[in-house]
């Protein structure tokens, strides 16, 4: 067995010089030694923590502070669990042995010491403590690695979701910033206003991520309709409206996604972001609070962003015009609470547009 002992130090606490020298001499080839000649001095050396000891060899009968009192003091700081402590004693009384073990000593070694016995007993325990520490460090490192990997995977997932949504946006001639803004507006409305009361930060993050996928169903809409510059015919409009149902179906068909919390929000948002508070929306004609909070929020974010952006069939409205049109119910009907929260935070939402400048 090869033991790496470099820099390992014993602390020998004994009032008798011969005892200290005998112990140090026994371990000379494996450990260096520090000395204390009474309990008080020894305790100070341990507690001040300047030197980490691989083991503490403690005499019992000493002036100033005896070994048992030292143990009692150390017990308060739970030092015995970090450093193995050995009682080296000529006292073979049951009392002292019981007390010593109760106070956390690793072993009790009788004086006069027998070198090969004390070597074996102390070195085994030191090695045990060291390997336990190594193992703990290893586990800690592995935990950190796992956490880093998990973060990477989450970032990759979010990246893929965004890539998919952006690809779809590109098809109908938008810049790709639309989905990012929907994400940010949704996050802003839920985290900065009372709308998000009762939702955790994680839930708000999940909803915001899900909002990115609100229009994935557009992938199933033919170019001729999706990219048509002019007004859609009634028949074309009926097909266009199917992007809600198709989107939900698409999300439903991705098995990996289905096991996640994001999926539940994404499914709901994709299917219901064109519902109206007055029940005149599509595809299900849900009314009032039948529509989930997140579907309502994304719906408003989508309308606001559509108004403020240039589209193939329209120019961009000013922020003020967009707000006015929404308040006047020109672009759908929203819940009074949602509108109130929106008006309150709308100045902040405008700042999101500085972040993603249109190309």
């Amino acid at each position, binding site marked *: 067995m090869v033991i790496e002992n470099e820099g390992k130090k014993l602390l020998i606490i004994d009032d*008798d010089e*011969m*005892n200290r*020298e*005998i112990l140090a*001499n*026994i371990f*000379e080839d494996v450990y260096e030694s520090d000395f204390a000649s009474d309990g008080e001095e020894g305790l100070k050396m341990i507690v001040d923590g300047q030197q980490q000891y691989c083991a503490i060899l403690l005499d019992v*009968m000493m002036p100033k502070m005896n070994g048992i009192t030292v143990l009692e003091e150390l017990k308060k700081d739970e030092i015995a669990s970090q450093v193995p402590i050995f009682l080296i004693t*000529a006292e073979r009384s049951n009392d002292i042995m019981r007390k010593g073990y109760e106070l956390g000593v690793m072993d009790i070694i009788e*004086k*006069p*010491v*027998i*070198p090969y016995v004390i070597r074996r007993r102390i070195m085994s325990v030191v090695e045990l403590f060291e390997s336990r520490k190594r193992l703990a460090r290893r586990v800690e490192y592995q935990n950190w690695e796992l956490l880093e990997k998990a973060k990477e995977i989450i970032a990759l997932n979010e990246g893929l979701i965004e890539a998919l949504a952006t690809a779809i946006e590109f098809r109908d001639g938008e810049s790709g910033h639309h989905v990012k803004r929907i994400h940010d507006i949704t996050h802003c409305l839920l985290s900065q206003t009372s709308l998000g009361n009762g939702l955790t930060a994680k839930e708000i993050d999940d909803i915001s991520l899900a909002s990115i996928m609100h229009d994935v169903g557009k992938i199933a809409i033919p170019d001729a309709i999706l990219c048509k510059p002019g007004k859609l015919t009634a028949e074309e409009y009926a097909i266009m409206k199917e992007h809600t149902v198709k989107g939900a179906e698409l999300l439903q068909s991705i098995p990996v996604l289905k096991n996640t919390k994001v999926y539940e929000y994404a499914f709901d948002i994709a299917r219901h972001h064109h519902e109206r508070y007055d029940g005149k929306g599509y595809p299900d004609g849900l009314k009032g609070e039948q529509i989930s909070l997140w579907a309502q929020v994304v719906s408003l974010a989508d309308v606001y962003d559509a108004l403020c952006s240039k589209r193939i069939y329209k120019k961009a409205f000013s922020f003020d015009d967009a707000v006015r049109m929404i308040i006047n119910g020109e672009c759908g009907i929203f819940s009074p609470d949602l509108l109130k929260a929106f008006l309150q935070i709308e100045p902040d939402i405008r700042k999101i547009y500085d972040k993603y400048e249109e190309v």
Partner: protein
Amino acid sequence: MSLERLASIGVDVDEAMDRFMNNEMMCIKFFKKLLNDDNFALLQEAFKTYDLDNAIAYAHTLKGVCGNLAIKPLYHIFDEMVKALRDDDWEHAKKLDDQAKLIYEQLITIIKMMA
């Protein structure tokens, strides 16, 4: 100087050398230190003044010294003396001290001759 002579009063020289990891210099150094060690004199003083606490303390120290140096007869005497004093058996302790004196004197004589 040789440690062999010490065997004549019952010192287990091999055990003592083992304890010092065969470092003879160190072993001799601690035998010689006994020449200036006042624990035995202080123990006699404690017996004279019936100072039980100090008698226990000095007997305990001497037991430790004799144990380390493998001075077997003295080690056993001091071991028993500590027990007797703790049991407050002053009479028995005193008898043990008389035995100790004889051996201790011989021990000091031999160490002096070794020098």
